[in-house]
């Protein structure tokens, strides 16, 4: 828990391997920390999407593993590791193999890459105080649902080489303050027999708090934050995030869909609690 006189914002630093070359080793790839806060690292995930082996370094430049290895797809960091604002997360990768969805029938196209590492933790802001509900409350479970049609592919037609821009979606928080605990998502892709499935590399997501502050440095792969994604031990936001009544849950969605998969119907659920005024 944060010390007195500071507050923690859930945050994920993303490393995109899109620009790397398959089959090559890389040393000292860098994710610079944002200014204004410490970053407390608590989870590292995504290695199988990016390379055969990896390791990363602490804030003082010391390696966190004795050599490159096939790091688990989801790994906790205990104790949490602090990166000051002027530091960086350095990464070594062994034999890069970027996960991707290829446009099979379109010569010259560039695949949609879902080759990402995610470093999850919190940004700790000192000298600032968390904003709370302005009324005494009790809580009840509540889920805010959002449904939309995704028409964009990961790259722009007809050549499918240039990445499409993210689409911003705003979900209204009505009636009472809402405390977000977890996110789930399903998708129905265009197909001969449409089937609803959990999202698994269908998009990248950037989530904002109620004051418009991003909780990721770049859009993060859906399964790294959705709780119902296969194979991952995802939960986001941690700690929970409060959205006051009348505010919006703002999300950027970067499609990773192929030409054969659009249009697709996306269902996202924001699970948490409503804060009811207590008499």
């Amino acid at each position, binding site marked *: 828990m944060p010390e007195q006189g500071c507050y923690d914002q859930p945050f994920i630093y993303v490393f995109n391997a899109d620009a790397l070359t398959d089959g090559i080793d890389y040393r000292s790839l860098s994710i610079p920390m944002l200014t204004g806060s410490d970053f407390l690292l608590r989870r590292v995930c995504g290695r199988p999407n990016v390379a055969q082996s990896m390791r990363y370094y602490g804030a003082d430049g010391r390696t966190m593993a004795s050599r490159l290895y096939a790091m688990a797809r989801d790994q906790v960091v205990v104790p949490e*590791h602090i990166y000051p604002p002027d530091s960086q997360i350095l990464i070594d990768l062994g034999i890069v193999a970027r996960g991707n969805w290829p446009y099979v029938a379109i010569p010259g196209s560039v695949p949609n890459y879902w080759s990402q590492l995610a470093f999850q933790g919190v940004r700790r802001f000192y000298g600032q105080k968390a904003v709370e509900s302005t009324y005494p409350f009790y809580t009840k479970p509540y889920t805010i649902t959002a449904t939309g049609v995704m028409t964009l592919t990961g790259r722009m037609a007809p050549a499918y080489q240039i990445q499409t821009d993210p689409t911003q979606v705003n979900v209204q928080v009505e009636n009472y303050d809402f405390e977000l605990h977890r996110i789930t998502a399903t998708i129905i892709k265009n197909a001969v027999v449409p089937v609803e499935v959990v999202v698994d590399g269908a998009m990248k997501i950037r989530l904002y708090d109620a004051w418009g502050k991003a909780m990721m440095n770049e859009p993060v792969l859906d399964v790294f934050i959705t709780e119902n994604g296969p194979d991952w031990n995802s939960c986001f936001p941690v700690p*929970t995030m409060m959205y006051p009544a009348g505010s919006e849950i703002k999300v950027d969605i970067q499609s990773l869909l192929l030409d054969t998969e659009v249009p697709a119907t996306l269902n996202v659920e924001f699970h948490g609690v409503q804060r009811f005024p207590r008499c």
Partner: protein
Amino acid sequence: MSSPRLNPYAPPAYNGLSGDYPYGFVDVDHTYVYQVVLLASQMLRDQQQPIDTDADFVLRAIQLTSMTGVFAVRFSDSQGYYLSNGMLRNAIFLVGTVPVPFPLFPELVFPAGGRVGIDIQDLSVAGNTVELAFRGVKRYRLPAGA
């Protein structure tokens, strides 16, 4: 600004574990990686994973990160204390087919410059490349007065 609250759905580490180390020390997450190539049915005794000289290592879990066939293994600490009376099959490091950390309780402290002792045997009757990760923390001694 938002409200920092524990998330009851998240694993404890995601909510932040600050470490529980003795006064005058600081713990830093660390993994020692042991890699070995075994010939068919080969048995290697008294192998070792050396511990760096800059800090003690507190071992909390063993993780099987990759293998190309079945094998058996036995571990010992720096004093030669064996952690089992016989060889352990690799399947104990799996839940189903998924490797998960094999926890050690209580944690084992290996002194700086020490070693994790390893006996390992191929059971696949073919060549076998095995990688094991020793998960824990490096326990650094803080300078006097720090």
